[in-house]
């Protein structure tokens, strides 16, 4: 039992170390400033519209949070393992009794915690701006934003796992392109499958189906997020299913990344 606890403490130590490294980096805060700027810009855009100011603020604000969160997740995630190799800090990690899966799990949890903190701060700022811009109370604004922001965080957890997976073997440029590509396709998977179905071409249909089933599907998550954003009652069954789907996908990616790391040589 204590041995098992010891193994989890190593993951926690790596996670804490990764979290500290990220949140102490000034670049991390420049992204936050950028989101503040976009949200304030959305307030100006909302004032130019006719009665749609709150909607514009919500749309632009949440899109900015998702996008900036995604950029942080991709660039930090893609460099997470390779930075350790380039700076040779990996030598001091893997000469300790640490396994590949402990390293990957720790890195993933550390980056996830940093990104979740950032998204939460952005969400709180957006709630504050919404409260100031509309007569509703701060509490109700937080309530209306809570689930959509949680779903953004859920999506980012998947993006971080994709980025870490590619960072274990691909070259710097390719790992960013692969992660961006996979994130994009995850939103368009349904359309791709529909395209194959409409083509009436059997090989193409098989190919698009294979892509749809292999790559993650985030279309339902976006749909659920948009419904929740405008006060519609979300289908809890669908949200639970999406959560389980993303957690499973994250676990598969992290297991593959751990296997690659475990068998890797560090020259």
């Amino acid at each position, binding site marked *: 039992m204590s041995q098992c606890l010891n193994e989890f*403490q190593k993951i*926690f130590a790596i996670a804490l170390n990764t979290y*500290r490294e990220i949140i*102490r980096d000034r670049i991390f805060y420049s992204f936050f400033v950028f989101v503040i700027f976009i949200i304030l810009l959305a307030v100006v855009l909302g004032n130019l519209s006719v009665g749609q100011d709150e909607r514009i603020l919500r749309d632009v604000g949440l899109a900015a949070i998702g996008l900036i969160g995604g950029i942080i997740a991709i660039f930090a995630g893609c460099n997470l393992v390779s930075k350790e190799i380039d700076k040779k800090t990996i030598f001091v990690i893997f000469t300790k009794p640490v396994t590949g899966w402990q390293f990957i799990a720790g890195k993933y949890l550390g980056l996830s915690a940093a990104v979740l903190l950032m998204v939460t701060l952005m969400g709180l700022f957006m709630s504050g701006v919404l409260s100031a811009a509309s007569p509703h109370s701060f509490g109700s604004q937080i309530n209306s934003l809570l689930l959509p922001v949680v779903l953004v965080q859920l999506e980012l957890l998947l993006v971080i796992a994709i980025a870490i997976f590619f960072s274990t073997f691909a070259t710097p440029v390719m790992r960013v392109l692969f992660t961006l590509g996979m994130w994009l396709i995850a939103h368009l998977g349904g359309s791709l499958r529909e395209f194959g179905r409409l083509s009436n071409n059997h090989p193409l249909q098989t190919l698009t189906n294979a892509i749809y089933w292999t790559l993650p599907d985030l279309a339902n998550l976006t749909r659920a997020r948009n419904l929740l954003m405008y006060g519609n009652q979300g289908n809890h069954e669908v949200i639970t299913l999406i959560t389980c789907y993303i957690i499973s996908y994250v676990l598969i990616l992290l297991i593959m990344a751990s296997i690659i790391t475990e068998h890797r040589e*560090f020259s």
Partner: protein
Amino acid sequence: MTGCLIETKGLTKEVVSQFLRKRTCILDGVDITVEQGQTFGLLGLNGAGKTTTIKLLLGLLKPTAGTATVLGRTAGSRDALQKIGFLPENPYFYSQLTARECLLFMASLFGVPKEIARERTEKLLSLVKMSTNANLPMNKYSKGMLQRIGIAQSLINEPQVIFWDEPMSGLDIIGRRDVRHILHNLKEEGCTIFFNSHLLPDVSEICDTIGILHKGKLIAQEKIATISTQGHYKDLETYFLQSIGETDDSTQRLPQ
């Protein structure tokens, strides 16, 4: 455990280039034996394969052929790593962390309980004379300061076997003296030490046994005492140069 703590038999490492798939042999059938409590210095020119040997003994690289064991276990196994301390060449640590945080982090990777880790951290910071700078982020450190922290982190688990790759690198005269003191103390405590170095005076002062690696082959393994008393060698440098087939250039003068 008594007897042989580090052993390689026919240790060979080849690398294959990515483009033309050309094979290059970095280490060729190296046999090294280091007894418990011994201080072993691995000498060699740049590119001789010294760092590769250490990486193979730590499991960072996998051998193409041959075997490597440390503390009676396969090199790189978690049981062996639990009792090993390692200082890499030109160590680089997490730049946003402080030295104290770094040492506590390294201790947690060995599963050292928090209270003991805190105690050892303070003791080691004082040993490497870094207590006053321990709360500064490491991106503010000089090369010598990083080297001192590297030495401290390699001792955080109170290891039985130490692998130090160029421990004197980046250190000033006082730093080198301090490291020699640390090595002497570790030796007295019965620690087995394996290190690479270019600095022959330090090697001859600290080591019991040396091995000379040349073009991936171990061409000599000898006790320092034997070299200085029995041989016809003036010093370790002469022994080293003669072993690798180099003539002593000090006898050759440029034409006037």
